[in-house]
């Protein structure tokens, strides 16, 4: 056994089709977590324009809200946050050892709820953008 062949880690995402519910939940949770961390920085940047006075802050917010892209990103942000919260609660249950046999169902439930809440929020976010 002089040599052995290492196939590396590349195959992992190559087999995404076979991923199970728990694996998807893990991937989505990581992804949404990083998006929220990224958003935190832009959030602080926008808020800190208030340091330059009331008018500057109002101006920044108004300009941002008039952009369609920002409106769409806001919907996306809501979806990401809602999923992260719901799946976070699911993970809390998992950590407490409650309902581990239903972990896949609770993941699907989080997904469906996220979808529903996001769709319901669209009119509010997009109102007046056009």
């Amino acid at each position, binding site marked *: *056994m*002089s*040599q*052995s*062949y*290492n*196939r590396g*880690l590349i*195959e*992992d995402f190559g*087999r995404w*089709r*076979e991923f*199970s*519910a*728990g*694996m998807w*939940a*893990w991937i989505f949770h990581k992804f949404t977590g990083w998006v929220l961390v990224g958003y935190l920085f832009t959030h602080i940047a926008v808020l800190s324009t208030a340091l330059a006075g009331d008018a500057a802050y109002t101006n920044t917010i108004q300009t941002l809200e008039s952009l369609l892209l920002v409106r769409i990103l806001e919907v996306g942000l809501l979806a990401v946050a809602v999923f992260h919260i719901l799946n976070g609660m699911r*993970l809390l249950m*998992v*950590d*407490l*050892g409650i309902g*581990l*046999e239903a*972990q*896949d169902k609770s993941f699907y439930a989080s997904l469906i709820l996220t979808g529903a809440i996001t769709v319901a929020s669209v009119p509010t976010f997009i109102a007046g953008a056009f």
Partner: protein
Amino acid sequence: MSTQVPKQKEAESPAEEESAPSVGKQRRDQAKAERRTAAEKQKEAAEKAKEAEDTYHIKVFRYDPEVEGKQEPRFDEFHVPFTKGMTVLDALMYARDHYDPSLTFRHSCRQAICGSDAFFVNGSQKLGCKTQLSELSEPVRIEPLPHQDVVKDLVVDMDHFYEQMHAIEPYFDPDELPDGELEEQRQTRENREKVKMSTRCIWCGACMSSCNIAAGDNQYLGPAAINKAYRFAMDEREGEARKQERLKIIEQEHGVWRCQTQFSCTEVCPKDIPLTEHIQELKREAVKSNLKFW
């Protein structure tokens, strides 16, 4: 494998005949002719099998570092005649016995008890002898377990897995022994029920192979080892002192806290052990023994 004399190797691998050292023209010619008829026979059998209605198409990962020309991993396809109740292991054995004797894989008990034939079948870790062909879609892709080094064909290096299993001291070790030499150490029914599932592990390594965390962190104990630790830590006969020692082992940096509850291991375990549940319970035990507010 390394003890093979070159001649045997030559006979096993028809493709290499040109590059093999010449042993004597006559013998070589004879061997060649023999091989050719054997190869023809094999081909005929394969074609016949392909034509017949009830065959299963399997694609098997091949790799052999010791034979030049087989060092590049590839897939070999076989058409195996299907019989009712045939498992993935049966198909591999058929392919080996009828088409290619050099096809290498581990197996022994054929009844999901020895744990030597975990493969990566159609994208998930399965026990060859416990997986019905009829449940799988064709072509059935059979690969060695991911995240472990491949030694040859479907054989992977299990050393690391065994090391992790031994790291948690997987043996019964009570604080106090009974006085009489032949006295039994009885366990309550409830306690037996609690550890029942965790005792079923057959050391197949499927769980470890399915775990992303174990893949990224080579020192992570892995689901099977933690499950073994659970089996003894939860055994009331061992006593409190031993339990604390066991908790020390599993709550190290590369112990239970690495688990991110992907449930991959629980999903693939052929013995249906609720691995994630056991890991979570040990996490709670570890917290309980460390957090003291009073």
